[in-house]
């Protein structure tokens, strides 16, 4: 199961070990862990809650992983994203990609993360000293995702 949405924390080391277990074709694993910070947009953040669109979220993440497989030589990939109540220092997301060589693993991992940020239906709400607020989307995230479209246009 390459995509999981869950409230529980995850053990990145154990997940990475499982991803490549017993497969001698794997020469590289690239992994990204996103973590909750205690500050955003200049304000202190005490807690955050993550909401998602059940069903569509899993579907969107699976489509992103399928696209990564189509673009790079990916042996296996895993996405775990937490929802519910989180606090600063908590892990939010894990993306891990196993491949024969590091180039494919690094690029596919970054691609999955960039697309997740702009296409997977999650929303963050932060609790700050001034009250709760919905996190605003960032233009830089759209730009990061758009880079991959430009690269594909170059190739195709």
């Amino acid at each position, binding site marked *: 199961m390459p995509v999981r949405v869950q409230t529980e924390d995850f053990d990145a080391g154990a997940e990475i070990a499982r991803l490549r277990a017993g497969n001698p074709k794997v020469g590289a694993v690239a992994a990204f862990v996103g973590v909750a910070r205690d500050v955003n947009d200049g304000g202190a953040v005490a807690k955050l809650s993550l909401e998602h*669109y059940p069903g569509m979220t899993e579907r969107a993440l699976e489509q992103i992983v399928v696209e990564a497989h189509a673009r790079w030589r990916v042996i296996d990939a895993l996405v775990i994203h937490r929802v519910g109540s989180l606090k600063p220092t908590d892990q939010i997301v894990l993306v891990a990609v196993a491949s024969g060589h590091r180039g494919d693993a690094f690029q596919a991992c970054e691609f999955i993360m960039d697309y997740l940020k702009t296409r997977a239906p999650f*929303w963050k709400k932060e609790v700050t000293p001034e009250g709760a607020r919905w996190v605003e*989307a960032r233009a830089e995230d759209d730009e990061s995702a758009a880079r991959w479209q430009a690269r594909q246009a170059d190739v195709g």
Partner: protein
Amino acid sequence: MIKLLFFARLRDDLGCAQEDLALPAGVDTVAGLRAYLMARGAIWQEALARGGALGVAVNQDMAQASTPISAGDEVAFFPPVTGG
């Protein structure tokens, strides 16, 4: 009937998470549905008047203004996503 879903800030602004709606006569695209909902009043007008920043999914796939809608569909409206 169609099933409408609203998420995150949009749900808060509208005070509505889910609604079953008889597909209004003449509404057959996302743009048509959005215009129909915006005509409900000031709150709807304001919440759904966010231009390109408003996300829409039809049957759990990202949709465009021109995406067709028919009876039985699940249509979700939401703000730009902020996961990761």
